[in-house]
């Protein structure tokens, strides 16, 4: 845990809005969540006012935790998760960040597979316009005896303007030998031919973009108790951007 005010030299704060961090400093201690063996935990984080969320989550043997994040508001919004998985535990993250203007939005995760047979899946989608910056830094650490670990990171960002920035860094640190760790990372722009096709059928440019972005973030909130309201909030934010 960082005690001193972080600087850009700290990997986990490399792309952060340090001035905003300083204004919020000192941060309260991270919220600590312990999911007991066999338990289930679910949380939705709607970051819409420029705040810093820090959660430490320990997932007990055979327990599950699912976190859904919609990171959209304020000049600087950060969601930081520090997750430890025990034997056979499961962690799921579905995060969407949507930013424009000069917003800085980030999702930072450290997922530690401490014991064998645990699974983790992280899906992160960022849509960035204007001069916004969206960052995902995700470290997956697999301990020496955490065999049969299965971990997936799927990270995609869509830049609506050339002036927007996406940083994506899925990172693996593996000390066991029998593990399956997959990560995919893509930063792109909306397909120009797709947009033209939609418009050639009568759809306005803004609606065409919105349709394609809706498809881009589709599925991320699957399984969330408030899937519908999350999706609606994401769509309305997308509507503001296009």
């Amino acid at each position, binding site marked *: 845990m960082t005690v001193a005010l972080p600087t850009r030299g700290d990997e986990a704060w490399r792309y952060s809005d340090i001035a905003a961090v300083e204004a919020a400093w000192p941060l309260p201690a991270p919220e600590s969540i312990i999911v007991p063996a066999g338990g289930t935990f679910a949380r939705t984080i709607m970051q819409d006012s420029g705040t810093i969320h820090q959660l430490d989550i320990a997932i007990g043997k055979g327990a599950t935790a699912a976190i859904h994040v919609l990171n959209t508001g304020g000049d600087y919004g950060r969601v930081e998760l520090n997750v430890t998985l025990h034997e056979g535990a499961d962690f799921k993250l579905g995060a969407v960040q949507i930013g424009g203007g000069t917003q800085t939005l980030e999702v930072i995760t450290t997922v530690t597979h401490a014991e064998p047979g645990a699974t983790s899946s992280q899906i992160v989608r960022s849509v960035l316009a204007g001069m916004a910056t969206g960052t995902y830094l995700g470290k997956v650490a697999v301990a020496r005896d955490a065999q049969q670990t299965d971990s997936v990171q799927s990270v995609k960002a869509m830049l609506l303007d050339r002036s927007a920035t996406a940083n994506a860094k899925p990172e693996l640190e593996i000390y066991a030998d029998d593990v399956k760790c997959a990560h995919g990372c893509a930063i792109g722009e909306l*397909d*120009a*031919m*797709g947009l*033209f*096709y*939609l*418009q*050639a*059928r*009568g*759809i*306005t*440019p803004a*609606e*065409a973009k919105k*349709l*394609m972005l*809706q*498809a*881009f973030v*589709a599925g991320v909130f699957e399984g969330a108790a408030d899937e519908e309201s999350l999706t609606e909030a994401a769509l309305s934010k997308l509507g503001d951007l296009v």
Partner: protein
Amino acid sequence: MLQINNLHANVGDKPILKGLTLSLNAGEIHAIMGPNGAGKSTLGYVLSGRPGYKVTEGSVTFTPPVLPGEGRGPEPQTDDSVAALDPGLRRGTQEPIDLLALEPHERAAAGLFLGFQYPVEIPGVSNVQFLREALNAQRKYRGEAPLTGGEFLKVAREQAGALGMDMEMLKRPVNVGFSGGEKKRNEMVQMGIIDPALAILDETDSGLDIDALRTVGDGINRIMRKPDKAVLLITHYQRLLDYVKPDFVHVLADGRITRTGGADLALELERDGYKELAA
């Protein structure tokens, strides 16, 4: 209905259309044939407003010839937002429209449909959602009431059925994983649902099997062979023209119309090729 006059257009910085003149009247079907790379698809893209296709000279006017009160949809709404529309953009008038001044979606709403040589895949967006949004966007633009989900599905089911396309396919993402022929068939289902005044069909026959060719040919006749509509059929093969008999056949070569004739011209081209013609 469509008046193309001395059209010059660049793709990037390269001149592709070099003084193309062509005129289509309501009720007519025109075929365009011509060598690979002559500019046929470019013409379709320029007419529908694809970004990057720049007109450097010439003009295009479009006159969707639906008589007032005989529009294909319900009566136009008369609220202020509709009254504020440029009357030339509403269907049901006979004002000529400067087509090139419109955005692609406005051209579609005015009644222009482009059947793509290579229909585009759009992952994550279902055909049904796409088409309902497209149709209702056009209707809104023309001041017509939107179709409800039920009304839309009825139209979609009819058109898919007539073209032998499974409703399940309509629920799939637009063109994703469709075979070449299925994509072309899907273009025709879209045309049936949208019911345009003018269709430019770019090699809709390419990639179709023998039965599908007949189905698509029948579809074009059913949807478009009407006194108030017109079709520009881009094709390499005489075979489609057996089903959809053209009133005129044009040869497009090196960015211009170099020859115009009746349906017989297609037979002559099939026999002799373009080289013979140029000689």
